[in-house]
């Protein structure tokens, strides 16, 4: 081996040691004696495709930080947020978390928006030993990483958010259940698997599938798809939807004058502001959707959260964005860990959250080893122009309305 080569190797080892030391020192700040503010870093999509939801996440984080600071902070330390924009880019999100951890030496990190960004971001956090609490991004690929430091802060993995609807249908007497079902699914890592999960469970329960198609995200005009469904007269229509396509499905069904006995949409219909605006208020009645937080929720801290949200951002309980509630719940968990453990650092968060059940505004949360939550979503339904929780009965504010009233009724 030449001297040059040896020097080169020594240099590499030295660099690796320096890097490891840097990481350790970055992480040890959280574990050291508490002093100064508790700095929490997060990369959020303030521009690009996810910017609407990203801003809502930012609102939720800031609302929590302001609330906790008004009550004296965490273990006497004021919370300081360091939020940066990732432009909805999976490359930028990696750079952002590396900077937050290595350059800014933040004490803790909170997650970004979407599965697309959560996957690379959680890998960075894992590399540096940071706990990673994500308010969004619960697609199957996230949990397949098997990260011990990861916690998805929603009641269940996103794909299983339709289970509550299946449970509701199966709770009905057999003669009131749908006999036939049609599934129109957006080709999306969230929407299609969710609808497929429902289909498999309903087929196993004897509900016959008469139509099942996946449509690409570029599909502007869903009327031929809905026309094909209408021709088969299904009792139930399940939309594996996001936003635009959810509105199109409803509008097309209204125009085609077909009213199914049951209708469920994975996303879109659970937006209290956008949905009635896009499809017309009178066309929302009876449509089901999954939800974690909902107006009037009795979950821990929900009333305070709602009041603080309205004070900070205006509107009413009906206009609170789910993504803000999920982000707020991330902060609640940090508070709860600190209260229970008497200290706050990444190792404490990881080990503490892996045991027990944690009350949040989204309900009681708990996680498996890979960060997948073990609970169940709530079923909400549009009734008299309001989105109300209707199942399970423990949280219901109204009885489920079935069969669905006619459009415009």
């Amino acid at each position, binding site marked *: 081996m030449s001297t040059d080569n040896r020097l080169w190797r020594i240099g590499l080892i030295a660099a690796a040691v320096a890097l490891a030391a840097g990481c350790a020192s970055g992480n040890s700040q959280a574990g050291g004696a508490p002093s100064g503010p508790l700095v929490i870093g997060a990369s959020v999509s303030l521009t690009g495709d996810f910017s609407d939801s990203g801003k809502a996440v930012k609102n939720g984080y800031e609302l929590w930080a302001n609330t906790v600071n008004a009550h004296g902070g965490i273990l006497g330390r004021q919370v300081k947020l360091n939020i940066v924009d990732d432009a909805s880019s999976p490359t930028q999100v990696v750079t952002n978390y590396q900077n937050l951890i290595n350059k800014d030496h933040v004490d803790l990190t909170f997650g970004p928006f979407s599965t697309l960004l959560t996957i690379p971001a959680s890998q960075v956090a894992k590399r540096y030993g940071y706990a990673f609490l994500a308010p969004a991004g619960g697609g199957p690929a996230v949990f397949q990483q098997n990260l011990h430091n990861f916690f998805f802060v929603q009641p269940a993995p996103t794909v299983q958010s339709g289970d509550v609807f299946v449970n509701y249908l199966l709770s009905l007497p057999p003669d009131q259940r749908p006999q036939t079902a049609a599934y129109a699914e957006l080709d999306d890592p969230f929407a299609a698997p969710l609808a497929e999960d429902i289909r498999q469970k309903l087929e196993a329960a004897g509900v016959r599938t008469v139509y099942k198609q996946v*449509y690409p995200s570029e599909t502007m005009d869903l009327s031929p798809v809905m026309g094909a469904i209408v021709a088969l007269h299904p009792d139930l229509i399940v939309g594996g939807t996001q936003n635009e396509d959810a509105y199109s499905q409803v509008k097309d069904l209204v125009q085609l*004058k077909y009213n199914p006995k049951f209708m469920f949409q994975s996303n879109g219909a659970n937006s209290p502001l*956008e949905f009635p605006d896009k499809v017309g208020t009178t066309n929302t009645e009876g449509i089901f959707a999954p939800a974690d937080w909902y107006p009037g929720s009795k979950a821990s801290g929900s009333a305070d959260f709602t009041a603080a949200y309205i004070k900070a951002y205006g509107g009413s309980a009906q206009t609170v964005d789910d993504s803000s509630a999920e982000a707020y719940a991330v902060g609640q968990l940090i508070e709860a860990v600190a209260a229970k453990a008497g200290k706050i650092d990444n190792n404490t968060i990881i080990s503490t959250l892996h045991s027990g059940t944690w009350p949040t505004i989204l309900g009681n949360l708990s996680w498996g080893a890979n960060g997948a939550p073990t609970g169940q979503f709530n079923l909400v339904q549009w009734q008299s122009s309001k989105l109300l929780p209707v199942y399970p009965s423990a949280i219901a504010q109204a009885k489920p309305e079935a069969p669905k009233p006619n459009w415009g009724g």
Partner: protein
Amino acid sequence: MHALVQGVILGVLTAGVYALMASGQTLIFGIMRVVNMAQGAMVILGAYLSYQLFTSWGVDPFLALPITTLALFVLGVGVQWLFLRPLHAGDRSQLSVLVTFAVALLVEGFMSVTWTTTDRGINTSYANASWTVFGYQITLVRLWAFLLSLFALALLYLVLNRTRFGRAVRASVQNPESARLLGVESEWVSAIGYGLGTATAAAAGSVYGMLYSFNPNSHYDLISRLLSIVLLGGLGSIGGAVIGALVISVSSSVVAAAVSPIWSQMTFFIVLLLVLVIRPRGLFGASMRGAI
């Protein structure tokens, strides 16, 4: 069978909206040899203008057409004068792709800042109304869109064939040098031609906003479809744009209803490929200048 017939009906009616958008696109190419990548963005801008007039002042999108088409006509003239006129005639077609794409990005940015990236829709009282004819549904807005499209295309035809301006346009297209020698102000013809093409986008945008939700990014989905329609019909041919819109819309709709929505997206590209292999000029494309 019911689904198939309903698919054909929906396809024909939707074709009207596409024909309206594509006629402007093909007009612009016919007059100026400009491959206009901004037409989709102009359609969405038209939808936003209608949305604003409807939500702020309750102006019906169809009644707002004189305002929105005039606004986009002026914008189109401005874009031509500022960005396209300086391009060298020799490589205008190639350069215009880049320049008009930049215009599309500018318009997209403007829309994002003005109306944010949230999805919008124009919900008139009749937006979801339909008539039942022999058990099939005829959507009111699509029917109006179809009729509006026929009206606008007829108007465009009359302007091009029965007016002095139309003669000047055709003269400029067929022989720009001779036209100039005979006193035709070809730069003004181009500017007004681009303005007219953009004005059709405003009309199509109003209808588009009633049929679908839209956001500043929606133009990306539109432009590939518009270019396909124009290529299929033949660059520069207004009649070709109508036939192209019908072929693409009906075939997509029927395949989505009877086979799969995944294949529906592919269908128009397959149809386009086949037509271009057999007839590279498109269905009604002229082999030389002067197709309009």
